[in-house]
């Protein structure tokens, strides 16, 4: 278990995973549940255990819509989406390459996409 | 003014409304007036005085006087009326036994301020267009009127009489004074500077108790500092600590009750600015618990005898200003 990585995730997310009472409401509420290998409650639990490598290598990371339903519904205010986000950022940073390059942007532009979404995506998916 | 007061006093004595009058009595010189009780028209004619030097606050004498037989006429300046109101609130005076005539306040003059200019052998003072012409054994001297006014008058908070049965002269208003300027100046110093300032001031104290004994809020039957059983009794400061102790506790005991009449500093033989300690409490109370003027009324609760559940925490002391 990578203690530093866990520390980093906890710090980046600002989440106290120990507050989780394992009710599963996050997963009960998650719209992407079926797409995911690891579900929101598992993210929280696995980060607590320090089992982060698995999460980083899982496609589940990118299935989270960051809709924050789990954050909204969690009775204990654990904020699982923030954990997912933190793991996602860790993964991106570790991979050392950009998931998005400027060259890819023009293809993505269409009438409906808000400017801000692109900027955000660019900020999120690049080093 | 003096004539009007004498006339009214004699009328009230004559018609039996009152049987005594408390006011000010002429002294050896033009400035050394003494608070006095007059019982007859003759005494009043002979000695009653009200002029630039009648700065003494006579309200405290009413603690005793109002408990005597019959009614007493008291001439109260605006600042004195606050003291009197506060005494009513604390059940220290019998209101019914006092007939109050509100008289105009200062600015009064302070002979010490004249003498501090090095003017000695003073025989008489005339105010000509706000210049004092001072007759002395060594010839005439002059100084600006405003440099000779009493410290407490310089920072006058109110020209309004908050209690009276009748007025001679006009009533005034509560003033926007700058009375907290010096407190603020000290607050903005460093702790070291403040410490040094107060050490220099308080080390002058000779523990004559004049500040306490003149204070209209200090009307305890026996002061803790005079009571051998209180554990803090002491007659003279044997150590700088005892100087601090006396003045902190003195100010604390009148916190929320002090009307800022300024008598403490006026009577201090060593010119210690004691009123600054009282004003510090007043300023804090105003800032932390809402504007409060002791003596402005007779019913409101003193700030230290009440509370609000949302009051600030003492850590505010640690957070603001300069350490």
């Amino acid at each position: 278990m990578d203690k530093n990585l866990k520390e980093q995730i906890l710090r980046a997310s600002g989440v106290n995973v120990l507050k989780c009472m394992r009710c599963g409401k996050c997963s009960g509420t998650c719209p992407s549940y079926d797409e995911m290998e690891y579900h929101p409650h598992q993210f929280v639990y696995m980060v607590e255990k320090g089992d982060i490598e698995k999460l980083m290598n899982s496609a589940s990371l990118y299935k989270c819509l960051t809709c924050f339903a789990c954050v909204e519904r969690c009775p204990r205010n654990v904020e699982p989406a923030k954990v997912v986000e933190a793991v996602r950022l860790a993964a991106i940073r570790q991979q050392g390459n950009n998931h998005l390059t400027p060259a890819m942007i023009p293809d993505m532009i269409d009438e409906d996409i808000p400017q801000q979404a692109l900027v955000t995506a660019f900020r999120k998916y690049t080093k | 003014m003096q004539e009007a007061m004498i006339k009214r006093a004699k009328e009230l004595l004559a018609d039996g409304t009152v049987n005594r009058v408390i006011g000010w009595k002429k002294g050896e010189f033009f400035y050394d007036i003494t608070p006095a009780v007059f019982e007859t028209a003759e005494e009043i004619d002979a000695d009653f005085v009200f002029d630039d030097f009648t700065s003494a606050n006579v309200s405290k004498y009413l603690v005793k006087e109002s408990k005597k037989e019959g009614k007493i006429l008291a001439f109260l300046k605006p600042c004195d009326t606050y003291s009197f109101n506060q005494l009513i609130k604390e059940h220290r005076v019998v209101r019914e036994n006092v007939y109050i005539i509100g008289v105009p306040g200062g600015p009064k003059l302070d002979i010490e301020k004249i003498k501090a200019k090095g003017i000695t052998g003073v025989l008489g003072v005339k105010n000509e267009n706000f210049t004092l012409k001072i007759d002395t054994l060594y010839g005439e001297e002059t100084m600006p009127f405003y440099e000779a006014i009493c410290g407490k008058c310089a920072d006058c908070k109110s020209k309004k009489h908050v209690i009276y049965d009748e007025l001679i002269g006009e009533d005034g208003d509560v003033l926007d004074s700058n009375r907290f300027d010096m407190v603020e100046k000290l607050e903005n110093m460093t702790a070291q500077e403040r410490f040094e300032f107060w050490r220099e001031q308080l080390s002058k104290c000779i523990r004559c108790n004049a500040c306490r004994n003149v204070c209209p809020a200090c009307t305890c039957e026996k002061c803790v500092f005079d009571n051998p059983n209180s554990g803090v009794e002491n007659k003279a400061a044997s150590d700088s600590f005892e100087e601090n102790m006396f003045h902190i506790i003195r100010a604390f005991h009148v916190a929320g009750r002090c009307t800022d009449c300024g008598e403490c500093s006026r009577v201090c033989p060593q010119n210690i600015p004691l009123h600054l300690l009282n004003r510090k409490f007043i300023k804090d109370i105003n800032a932390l618990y809402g504007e409060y003027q002791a003596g402005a009324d007779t019913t409101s609760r003193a700030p230290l005898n009440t509370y609000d559940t949302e009051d600030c925490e003492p850590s505010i002391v640690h957070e603001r200003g300069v350490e």
Partner: protein
Amino acid sequence: MQVNNNFEPVIVAFCCNWCSYAGADLSGTNRLNYPTNVKIIRVPCSCRVNPMFILRAFQKGADGVIICGCHPGDCHYTSGNYFTRRRITLLYSMLDFLGIERNRTRLEWVSAAEGAKFAATMQQFTEDVRKLGPNRRLEDLRCRKQ
């Protein structure tokens, strides 16, 4: 300023019987260490603490004084600590005005359940006072230990 590394501050803690004294007991029960410098005086309520006691402590050799009471709203006597809060705020402000170091005095709310907070508070306060060094501004020279 001269720093005396061996300086062990004397700290007087006034604790309300119902909350903080019980909180102190709880930190004992839980074996939560705090410095021996702290000596507790039990009072029925923080509102029993007279400013004269605080000054007396400084006179007789205390380097720091801390008052602990129930949390506002939890006073066993319903309102005592509210009065404490006003009185002590004003007193501390006055001491500050006289140039006495702010960190020599403190007021904390510690409930009977907050044994850990009690210990941590005492630890912190002792450290703060230790940093200030001996009380020199509000001491009585006659009482200074030779």
